[in-house]
Structures are given as C-alpha cells and as structure tokens.
C-alpha cells in the first residue's frame, strides 16, 4: 500500500515536506488550525485534517496530532521545525503508537535538548566548548556558583535556559550585580517558556561567527556532513540570512569543523538529519554550541551546494534505508544564500505585518533561484503565527555571482500589502561589508543604516507615486 506521511506543521516547511513526500510517491497529509483555513499547505497536500481552532495550541497538541495520524492511517510523521519538532514527548508518543517519527529518537532529542547533558556528552568526546557550568544549583548556592564562574572567566557571560533553543531563553549579563539580579528572572522565564527552570552559564564569545554543519546519519551509525553554513547575520539571535558554505578563508579550519561535527553527532549516537552549531571567535577558535535535532529553516542552502535533498533523505532514513552515499561523494559546489522574506517592517523594529492581505505577489525566477514559500496573491497573513513568508535561496558558481543574483532577485520581487524585509535585504546586498563575506553576529547591530531606505526610493517610484495620485484624483492637485 502507498505510504502515508502526516506533516505536523504549517507554512513553508509543511509545503517543503509535502513536496518531498509526493516526490517519493507517498501520500501527504496536512494538518491545520482554523486560522489556517486558507493556507496553501492544505491545498497542496493530498489529505488534510483539521486539528481545532488553535491558534498554535492545536499544532502543539501531541494528542490531537497523533489522533489525526491514526485517523488517516499514517505511517510516519514529519514534525518540520518549531512546534513539536524538538519535543521528546512527541517523538516518544509516536514511538509508543508505532508511528515512525521522522527525526532522531526521543532519547537523543531529550539528551541534546537538555543543553547541560549535551555539553557533558560533547566534553567527554573531546569536542571544543565554550567555558560554562552545569545546571546551576537552586537558590543561593546557584548564585554563588555563577558568581564564581564570572570571577574566573570574566564578563560578559550568558545565562541560558537548559531547555531553551532557537535563540530563546538566553540572557546576556555584563557584570556581577546584573548576574545576581537576573538569575531569578531567567529562571522564571525559563519556567514559563519551557516548563523547566534550569539555567546554566556560558562565557560570551564576543562577536563570533555562527558556523553550523549539516549532518545526516543512518541507523547503522554512518554519519556524513553536507558541509558548513554561515548564519552570522542575525537580529536578536534570530537568523535572517544563511550562506553555504562558510566563507572562512582558512578551508582547512572549515574541514576540521565539519569533521568535528561528525564526531559530535557520533558521540550523541545521532540518527537522521541534524545540525551541529559552532561559534568561531576572532582568533579562529571554534566552540561547540548545540545540536539541533530537526530539519532547519536554512537547510536549503546546503541542498543547493551539495545537490542532496535533505528532507527526502530524512524520510528514507526514517523508513529504514541506509545512507546511499559516503562522505567522499559529497561535493560542495558554488555558493548559496538564503534570505528569509518576512512580513515585517524593518523600519518599525521589524514589527510583524500580520493580518494584511497580499495584494500583488510576483516572484523572481530564472537560473539559480529557489523559493520555498506559501503566500499567494490574495492571501491574508494570519496573525497567530510567525512572519516568515518565503525563503528565497539563490545559487551561484562564485560568491560574487551569487551576490549579484541575490540583488537581481530581490529587485524583481514584488509583494504589496504587507511590508516585508525585502528592501532591507536590498540594502544589505549592496553593503560592502556583506559583499566582502567577512562578517560576524554583530553585523546587524553595527550596520544600523540597513534600515534607512526609502521604500519608494528610486526616482521612477517617486514619479510613479505622483502619477498614481494624478490618476486617483483625476487631476494633478499640485498643479492647480
């Protein structure tokens, strides 16, 4: 019988997964909450199950998702990213019901999701790590522990929620007084956000590059990497632009980081697709940060430079297939850049533009362009979910060619209705520091001029505005 896979997600990633499922000849089942009634992932899927009114709560409801999978007779569930993707309870629930969870085992998720456990495993495997502590003890003892760490390694330091991830649950502390004051706040926040008030401390690596490595591992333990990615261009720990491969000049170092990533994955008995994240400091020291046990938003750039369909591979691995290639078969060719086109107003502190209708949608095309999105002309962006509309990934043979292509595609991208991050990226792509390829996580902070664009900027757009006004008013009121 034709295999059936339930995609427990929404938005662009749901569509990305559905495409892979359908390419494999399987049946794709979508799930949705009421606010997503008009969503495209329901339209492209072969079947769809309504979970409830949500918002968000039903996508996060393990019981309802499992029930939906059983109802449609699904063989497997792909969690995508976000929602239940890194929730070990969900993987466990799948395992318990005999559903294939497309991802690592609940145990691995659980271990790696607990940052302190992960650090311990990596330390044992001899993976270089940023100096840090175990989970801080409760109460005054924990505070003393933290203060002692600060005294030894110096400030600033990071207070991190053990159960956090994806840039959430992190607080930067500049001095001892602040540390004393903020431990409680961090705990309370962690408790509220992750239902786990454990926090730990890491030294801050100042203005590092964020370099990560895509890993694929089969059930027999064969583990390969698909090269590096640079995700340094972030705003408040949220990635905006991702590049493959890393642009670090010292290629030997990059190779070493990739090899280390494979070692790290093996140490964790990793299975399926995952990402090992590192920080690289000014002196080109690199430190393990964490392993993300899910498909990542930015997986597309690795696909573009390796030609390997990561989601398809994920499904096949989950279905019990072995990796059909070895490390030596993985060739990195050219460069890929992904920008996240969000419905946000960069000039208004990246405020989400949800609730707005996309009145005109025209996407760029041509050689070396890939779009992973879910918007269409006439679509009203729901207010209840994140603001990512489309991931645009461009590919080129050289870095310069890739940058040129990105510029062209951004200039040709028309989305009206909501404001988007496109004009911001247009400024970025013309920034000499970006073009040089040498940047770190301080890039956005140190380039505040990126938001200084005039949306109707060019001379012709200004004139067009007047023409529109003459047309609307039936006369030129500036010539009366």
């Amino acid at each position: 019988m034709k295999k059936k896979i339930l995609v427990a997600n929404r938005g662009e990633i749901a569509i990305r997964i559905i495409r892979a499922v359908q390419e494999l000849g399987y049946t794709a089942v979508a799930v949705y909450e009421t606010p997503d009634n008009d969503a495209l992932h329901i339209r492209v899927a072969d079947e769809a199950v309504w979970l409830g009114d949500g918002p968000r709560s039903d996508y996060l409801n393990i019981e309802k998702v499992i029930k939906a999978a059983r109802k449609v007779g699904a063989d497997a569930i792909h969690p995508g990213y976000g929602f239940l993707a890194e929730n070990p309870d969900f993987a466990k629930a799948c395992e318990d019901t005999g559903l294939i969870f497309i991802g690592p085992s609940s145990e691995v998720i659980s271990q790696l999701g607990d940052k302190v456990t992960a650090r311990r495993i990596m330390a044992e495997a001899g993976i270089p790590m940023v100096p840090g502590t175990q989970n801080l003890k409760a109460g005054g003892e924990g505070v003393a522990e933290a203060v002692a760490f600060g005294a030894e390694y110096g400030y600033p330091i990071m207070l991190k929620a053990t159960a956090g991830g994806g840039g959430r649950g992190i607080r930067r502390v500049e001095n001892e007084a602040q540390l004393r004051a903020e431990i409680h706040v961090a705990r309370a926040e962690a408790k509220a956000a992750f239902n786990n008030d454990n926090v730990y401390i890491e030294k801050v690596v100042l203005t590092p590059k964020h370099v990560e490595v895509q890993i694929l591992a089969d059930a027999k333990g064969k583990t390969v990497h698909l090269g590096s990615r640079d995700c340094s261009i972030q705003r408040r720990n949220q990635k905006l632009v991702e590049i493959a491969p890393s642009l670090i000049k010292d290629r030997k170092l990059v190779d070493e980081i990739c090899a280390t990533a494979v070692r790290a994955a093996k140490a964790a008995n990793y299975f399926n697709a995952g990402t090992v994240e590192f920080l690289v400091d000014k002196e080109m020291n690199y430190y393990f940060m964490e392993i993300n046990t899910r498909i990542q938003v930015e997986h597309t750039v690795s696909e573009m430079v390796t030609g390997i369909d990561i989601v398809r591979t994920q499904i096949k691995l989950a279905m019990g297939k072995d990796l059909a290639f070895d490390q030596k078969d993985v060739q990195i060719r050219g460069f890929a850049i992904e920008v996240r086109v969000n419905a946000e107003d960069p000039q208004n502190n990246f405020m989400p533009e949800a609730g707005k209708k996309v009145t005109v949608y025209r996407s760029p095309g041509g050689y070396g362009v890939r779009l992973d999105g879910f918007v269409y002309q006439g679509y009203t962006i729901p207010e209840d979910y994140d603001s990512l509309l489309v991931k645009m990934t461009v590919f080129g043979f050289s870095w310069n060619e890739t940058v040129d292509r990105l510029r062209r595609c951004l200039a040709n991208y028309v989305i009206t209705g909501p404001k988007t991050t496109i004009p911001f990226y247009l400024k970025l792509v013309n920034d000499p520091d970006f073009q040089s390829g040498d940047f770190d996580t301080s890039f956005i902070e140190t380039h505040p001029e990126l938001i200084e664009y005039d949306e109707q900027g060019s001379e012709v757009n200004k004139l067009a505005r007047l023409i529109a006004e003459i047309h609307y008013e039936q006369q030129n009121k500036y010539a009366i």
Partner: protein
Amino acid sequence: MERIVTGMSITEVLETMRGNEGYYVTNTARDLSQSDFKNRILLHTELLAAPAREKANYFSLEITGGASVHVDILRKQVDPFLKLELLRDKMPNTMFQTLCRGVNLFGYRPYPQNVIRLTVREFAKYVDVWRVFDFMNHIPNMLAVFEEVQKAGKILEPCICFSTGPEHTDDFYVNKVGEILDVTGDEILLCIKNHGGLGTPKRIGQLVAAIKDRYPDIVIHYHGHNTDGNDVGRISAAVRNGAKVIDAADHSFTGYYGPPPILSVIHDLREEGFEPVGLDDSAIIETSEILRNEREHYEYFESQFKGFSPTVQIHKLPGGAMGSSFEQAVKGDFLDKMPEILHDELPKVQKELGNYWSVTPGSQILWTTAVNNVLGGDRYGNPTGDLKNLLLGKYGPFPFYQPPDWIYEKVFGPDWKKILEEEGGLDDIEDIDIEKERAGLAKRLGYEPTEQQLVTYLQHPNDAVEFFKFEEKFGKVYVLPPSIFLRRGGFKLGETLQFKDHNGKEHVIEIGPKQKSEDGEWKVYLNVDHHEREYSFKEVVQGSVAQEAQLSKEEVEDLARVGDVRAPFKANVCEISVEAGQEVRIGDRLAMVEAMKMQTPVDSVVNGKIEKIFAELGQALKVGDKMIKIKVDEG
C-alpha cells in the same frame, strides 16, 4: 560681430547694437501669455523648444522673473534654479533674461535690502539681462537691484512703465529716463514697458523719438503686449523711431494675451527695411512647430476670454490680469458684473487712485478694489491691506496726484490725516537676519538647505517649503510631459506612459486598475518598469466639510469682539504677529492672511491677552476657522 552671445559685457552689447542697422529680438517665453496659461508652460515644454530657440539667435530669451519664480514652485513643482541650469545646458549662447519687480523682486511686496541683494546675486549666476521695473516708476525702489546687477557684471535694463492719459506726456517719461541714467550711468539698455499694450503705434513712435532726441546714444528695448491685437504696429513704430530691441513670442503659443508673433514682426519690419540681426527664420518656424504639438495639453488653462480685447485701452488691465480676472469672475460667480467692473469701475478707480501704472502689484490693487467696490456696493468700504499700503505711500509717492480726501476718510476713518502723517511714506524695511531664516528653513526641512533653496524660500516662504517637500516625495517631476503632469480625468486603463527621469533613465509606466478595497481604501495599481506597484488613497468624504455652516461676515466680527478671532475669508496664514500670553490693544496686528496675492492684516478689535493661537503659519483657512483666542480685559 553681429550676434550677441552670453558672456559679452554690457559695453560690447551696446557697441554691437549701435553698430548695426537692424534690430534685435527678445523671445518673451515667460510672458507668452499672461493668463493662467502662461503659468502652466512646463519646463518639459521649454526644454523641447530649447534647441530650436538656441538656433534662432535671439538677443535673449526671457524665461524667468515676474511671477514665474512663484509659479515654478507653486504650479509646476520645478526648482527655478534647476530650470535655468537645464535650459542653459541646451542653450549655451542665448542670453537669459529676467523681469524683476524692483524692491518687490519676484514677489508682490517690498523685500528687505539684504534679501534683494542675496537674491539678485544668486540669480545673476544664470541670468544675463535684468529688466527691472517699479509699478510707481519710483526709481529709489529699484536702486538695490540696479547696484547688484551692475556689481555682478550683468546687463542692466531699467524700465519706464508706460501708460496713457493726460499726465503721461513725453516730457514726463524723458525726465524719468534722466532720473534713471543719473543713478545707473550710460551703460544700460532702457526698456519701455508697455505691459498693457496701451497707446497707438503713433504714440509709441513719438515716445521713442522723444527719448532718442534727448539721449541719442541710448539703446531702447520696447516691450509690449498684443492684448488689443495691434502690438505689431507699436513695435514697428518703435523700431522705425530708433528702438533696437523688441519683445515678441513664438507664434504657435500666442493669442490675445502676451506679445505678438515674432515672425509677424519680422515680416512687417522687413518691408520697412529693417532686418532682425542674425535671426534664423526657419528656426523660429521650427520652434513653433514643436510647440504647436504641446499646446493641446494646456487647453484647460487657456483663458475663458477669447479673442482680442481692444477695450484694454479703457480698463488698462494688462493681459495677464485679464485672463485671471475672468477666471476669478467665473469662480466667484460674478461674470455678469464684468463689463461694469472693467469698463466703468476700473477706469474710475484708476483715475481716483492717481492714474499710476497698472502692473504688478499695482494692477492687482486696482482690480481688487474695483471688484470690491462693485460687489460690496459700498465703494472703498472694504479696503484690502495692500490698498491701505498704497494710500499710505508704502509703495512710493503717487506720480501725478494724491487720491481725493474722501477715499482716505473712507479707508482710514475720520482720523485719516493723523494716520497718514504718522504712518505714511515708504518704510525703511529693516534687514532680516538671513542666518536665522536659514536655520528656520533647515528646521522646517529637516536638512541644511542649499543657498538656492534659501533664496527661493526668502521669496515665498511657505510655498517654497511645500515645494521642497513635494520634491522630496515625488522627485524631479519636470521630466513628465504636460500630457501626464496636467492630465485631467485620469488615465486610461492599460495606457502606457513613457519618459526619461532626471538621470536620463528611460521608464515605462502602465496604468493598471483602480479599485476600492474591502477596508474602504482606494488602490491604484501601476506597472512601473514591469513591476507591479500598489498605491493606497483614503477617500475624502465629500460634503461633510462643505455642509458645515460657514460663518457670515457679521458673525466673524461678533466673535472677534469677544476675543474669538476667526478667519475673515478663505486665505492662507502668512504671518502670526503675536505670541501666547502677549498683551494686545485694539488695532494691534494679530496676524496677516493672504488671498489672491493680496495680504490683509487681522487686527485686534479688543484689549486683552493672547490665550491660544490656533492658526499655523502657512495654514489654508476657510471662512470662520479659528485663528486666535484672546482673553478680553474686564470692563
């Protein structure tokens, strides 16, 4: 050398002219038509005509000055300096000419000396020939401009304004020329400014001859208008009697208003044995062929008044004021009163007010007074601020005689003699602090203005700021042809608009649908260089404003007596003279408002203290809009 080109000094120009048998032509593009039509001719059109005009070899092209600086920013949304720069690119050899209203510069009332000097200095960078006049023919009013023009090494062309009537004798005018030469020296062109196109050819011929008789070496430039259809006759007479330069215009843009066709003048004078020096007939024809195609786009702005107007000899209203007077009559719904105003009241008012020259801003005062007299019923019962200033001698002494006492009494009340004694005469206008003005402009714009922007601002502060903001928002719009810029009734769906922007880049805009969206906003879709763009417009609910009851004149006056100062008529605020908390007495000026080029003071009718100021500088007020609240003193 025959041809006169840019860069020649006044001495070379005069020598060249005197040494030639023929005459020279100024293409009076600026004054082409005096109705609203003139105010509309876009830089886009001037640029189209520029190469052919350059080839024609005129003595000069009058392309700036008069009201043009104001209408450039007000109606064409073009920078008056950029205009000159772009035209200069296409016309390297043709001298550019301006018309400067003396102490009133390019505006409607006297400017401080330092503003005059700064303005002349900046414009002199582009303008070669400076025609300068004063509507009272009061030479001191022009002195500052004379000096600055000569200092800048440009060609000075002082005017004697011409009119008709028993006082307007040759002797009077020849003496005026003497007064001018006393202050300028001999190195000038002298202009006879016949802005109304008054008098017969014979009269003009006599005048030229009389001046030449007294000053045989003087080079005379005759400027006239074809309002009555006979300016070719006057030009011909002027040249036959010794005038060396005349004004005329491209024929496809002529009409009853403005100067007559260049080619008609040439044909006429050729028969008389006078050749236009260096002029290229075919280039003149070519220019008109180019302009003819453009004229249809200006049709909406052509005067409602068709045909020539020989009655100008009666009412003396210059061509420009004629067109706009009819427009006002249509808008103000008093078209039926026009014959009475023009042919009875206006000649009467002119005589009563001293038979001075009916040219800006004096012509506006005459016209407005005549209209108020007829519409108001009570002659001189509703004087404007500018009429008061005229009577007080703020524009200069009356040339022939003072208006009768009863008018003074009507305008200023029983104490008029005292008022005239205390306040009469030319004011010494104090220099303003230009750096303070610059800082004020910078604050309003949010950036440091250029010197040119400052100069434009000093002429017309509020309109200049509006224009700079417009340009920031909409860019350099002179690139749009009149078929776009002046389009009425909207564009057709699917219509394709093509133009080059200021940087020379070619663009295509296709008109898409116009729809009302669910949230009640209108959306206009354009395909801009093959990119779809959306523009939103909020609908202005019609009627809600109009239905608001407007206050009557009596109500406005009643409110003023309790300290609630309202706008007396539809006007723009051009000055707020008081600050909150200030004590005011009856008769103190609270603010100045401006409507139809005329400023009117709003004075306090109570004693009290300023409580609150509602009106803002530059605000467009409707009748009855709140301006100022005064706490009236008890008792």
